[in-house]
């Protein structure tokens, strides 16, 4: 049961990673690429890491297994703090370097 559920979470996580990569390839400019990767990664990493933590428990709820799962979940917490900070820093750096954002109007010209 736990195995099936963690496989399900894993599949959805991989799907979000997939959309992030497709977005990275398809988006027109720097900022939109940040949108696709910085965000799809958050959800994808969170789901895959949660799936791993759940899968780790499928042998039974021993103390050491629960501790390992807790440690795995801490990775997700760190991703949730570090990912937006890094995304912001890269976007800010791009703005400071003077990258012009792509807009619909500009493409029409």
């Amino acid at each position, binding site marked *: 049961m736990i195995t099936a559920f963690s496989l399900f979470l894993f599949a959805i996580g991989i799907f979000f990673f997939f*959309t992030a990569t497709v977005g990275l390839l398809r988006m027109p400019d720097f900022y*939109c690429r*940040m*949108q696709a990767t910085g*965000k799809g990664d958050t959800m994808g990493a969170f789901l895959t890491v949660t799936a791993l933590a759940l899968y780790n428990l499928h042998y039974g709820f021993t103390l050491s297994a629960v*501790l390992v799962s807790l440690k795995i979940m801490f990775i997700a917490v760190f991703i949730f703090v570090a990912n937006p900070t890094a*995304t*912001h820093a890269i976007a800010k750096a791009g703005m400071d370097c003077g990258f012009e954002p792509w807009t619909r109007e500009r493409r029409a010209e």
Partner: protein
Amino acid sequence: MRYIIVFILLFAHWVIWSGMLDAFHLALGVISCGIVTFMSHDLLFKRERITSQLLTESIRFLFYIPWLMYQIILSNIHVAKIVLNPSLPIDPKFVWYKSRLKKDIALTTFSNSITLTPGTITTDIVDGQYYVHCLDQKVADDLMGGAMERKIAHVFEED
């Protein structure tokens, strides 16, 4: 009082990370947590803060996380739809968002929440104004609705 809280938090972390529950490792943990508590007890909680207020904020923040997760899932699906749509219906733009939040921690939480929510990135904060890159009009409207800001103002008792 503050010493005890910091020590308990540090020691809980020690036990989680070390995973060794024998007397030797626990004694090492007690010693090192004691030293760290003695040296840096005033870093975690500011001196003028009242403990009950901190407790309220922590509990409200815990309730805020599931709501944020729900928003992240919703907008992630929205962005996935955009990316997988063959015509790529994006309309990227920068918007200014005027925030009424005051505390540093509230501003940081809000900007990180904006960036975590797919479709919006906080690029800068100038005098409480957020400079946000939005992927299309829908996510910009969601941001301008101000629901997230109200939640954060509630968490940090600024409403």
